């Protein structure tokens, strides 16, 4: 009975962990609460203070198209000294919503990055809107003109789709970030060990209790 249950659990969790999906390499934590900026054909919106994380191969934005097919969109990321870090293009024809723009792979993290989103010029392109939030102290620059108090949401994605198994080394590393100093390097291993140890001890305890009750009977 216990063996059947444990095997069933392992199969269910094993299959769930095999699901392959796009995984985050980071985010700028701006809530995508509303469309905060509109870009006309040929315009470009930029915002600074982004942390471009390592292992980024796509950038995810919330884009609106006013019901039309999406125009060609370009994205560039430049470092603090104006050094280009990566760029990417989303071909025309996409649908409004949450969209991913593939970019050249970024292998190391950079802080204070400027992200710019541009729309192809008319006549073939149409306007788009960028999803983000009202954020006091922030600003978005459109063609050199500053719009204060808004910010658009930027999510950074890792290459390809990954299963949880493939993501495990990354999760292990993330466990070490912003944690107690005495836990940092071994926290993921301890957590994994404790999860399995408590499950093992629980099942062993109930099995021993079953054996004891059968002896008494």
């Amino acid at each position, binding site marked *: *009975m*216990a063996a059947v*249950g*444990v095997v*069933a*659990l392992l199969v*269910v*969790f094993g299959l*769930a962990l095999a699901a392959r999906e796009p*995984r*985050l*390499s*980071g*985010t700028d*934590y701006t*809530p995508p609460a509303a469309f905060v900026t509109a870009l006309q054909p040929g315009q470009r919106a930029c915002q600074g203070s982004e*942390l471009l*994380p*390592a292992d980024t191969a796509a950038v995810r934005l919330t884009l609106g198209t006013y019901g039309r097919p999406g125009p060609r969109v370009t994205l560039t990321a430049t470092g603090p000294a104006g050094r280009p870090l990566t760029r990417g293009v989303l071909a025309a024809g996409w649908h409004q919503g949450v969209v991913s723009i593939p970019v050249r792979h970024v292998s190391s*993290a950079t*802080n204070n990055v400027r992200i710019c989103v541009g729309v192809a010029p008319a006549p073939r392109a149409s306007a788009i809107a960028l999803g983000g939030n009202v954020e006091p102290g922030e600003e978005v620059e459109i063609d050199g003109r500053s719009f204060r108090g808004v910010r658009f949401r930027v999510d950074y994605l890792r290459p390809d789709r990954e299963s*949880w198994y493939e*993501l495990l080394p990354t*999760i292990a590393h*993330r*466990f*070490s*970030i*912003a*944690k*107690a*100093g*005495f*836990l940092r390097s071994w*926290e993921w291993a*301890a*957590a994994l060990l*404790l*999860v399995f*140890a*408590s*499950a093992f*001890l*629980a*099942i*062993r*305890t*109930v*099995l*021993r*209790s*079953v054996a*004891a*009750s*059968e002896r008494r*009977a």
Partner: protein
Amino acid sequence: MPRAAWACAAVALLNGLAWSLITPPFEVPDENAHYAYVQQLAERGKLPRSAQPEGFFSPAEDGTLGTIYFYLIVGRPNDPAPFSEIDQREVEALERRHLRRTGNGNAFTATNNPPLFYAVQTIPYKLAGAAGGSVLDRLAAMRIVSVLMAAVTVLLVYLFLSELLPSSPLACTAGALVAALQPLFAFISSGVNNDALLYLAATGVLWGIARVFKRGLTPANGAILGAFVGFGLLAKLTLLAFVPAAAAAVAILLWRGLRRHQPGVLRGAAWAVGLGAVPIAVYYVLNRFVWHRSTVVGGLGTVTNSAVGRHFNRLEELSHIWQLFLPNLWMREQFPSYMPLWKTWFIGVVGRFGWLDYEFPLWLDDLALVLLIVVVTLALVELVRRRRALIARAAEAVVYALVPIGLAIVIGVQSYDSVVGNGAVFEQPRYLVPLLGLYGALVALAVRAGGRRWAPALAVAFVVLAVGHDIYGQALTIARYYA
């Protein structure tokens, strides 16, 4: 003490430690406020007091909360914990600044709580500090003490069940293990939150009640019951919910004992009342006249000033309490957009984690409902089958029934005050976790219903399901914060 009891406690310890490592710092509800309380007590030797501007803690804590993106993560299920080495370097740079550890003396939502939990937590706080620990180090050390409280809670669940069902050690083991693996209990107890000590005391009161009914109101048993009530009230005033049940148990057994001329019964009652009442009375006097703090959290009286233009109405309060826990029958709707019995309590207790910002998928809640119906049906079958024993222990059963009723009233009164006072939702699923002992008893009764033939299979099945439920909760938490 049976080895199985220690094993169940060890499961709670290991599981709680796993949760404490998996859950990022300050992501257990109100952990920032509870940490601030401990810090105020440890650094200044004083209890916190309301101060303006509310919500600002010490520079050390505020700085840490900022660098770990606390305010950007809480309540936003799509925003993970910090990922990058750059974030880590900022945390380390902040730690090197050794910012001041005293604030304006305010501990936000925890300010008016009684001090016992926080006094205990000053020990790991100071030990971690003596080793040069930062805010995050101290928090991690304090979490270990909370987890130890969870382990003792599960030990008490086992002891309670073994008093309740002394001839069924297998049922007791299964009930205690399922309690140890309840994900919401483990999650809350893995953080710095005075609920951890409340759960321990509440389960201790249940054990104390079971002891006095089974072994008599001796001075020792009266002292055990009174002590759990007394220190539980100093942990969190929610334990007031258990006072009617404890008082009823003492009154019934005192009456029985006096009629039967049992020796020591008066002394047993005196110990229970003394240890139950004296600590809270002393706390009340000190709080009011020495520390000049508000005594009753949330207010158990009526609301005089409403920020949302509502008026306190006793009948409406009763209706609110009813609808908070039971389906609305004929009353004016108090929760027009949702049914608390399902959305707040059932789904929430199955597992709503973080600052109430992520939970299991709905299919699991549906499955849990089916399983609950099976467990309740089995437990009822067992009670009907043993109706003679149940009738003989009717007074004890009524006392246990007073526990959830008392808790419902304490939660409901504060919920109504909150709605009338400022229009806010007060209730959270974790407020039902003090009933963990009764949850274990339900499972134990269901196992016993299987009889000699099926009880082993039921016990194993329930424990394996509880393991799966708990690990799924941990996996959800990893996905929420690290992926």
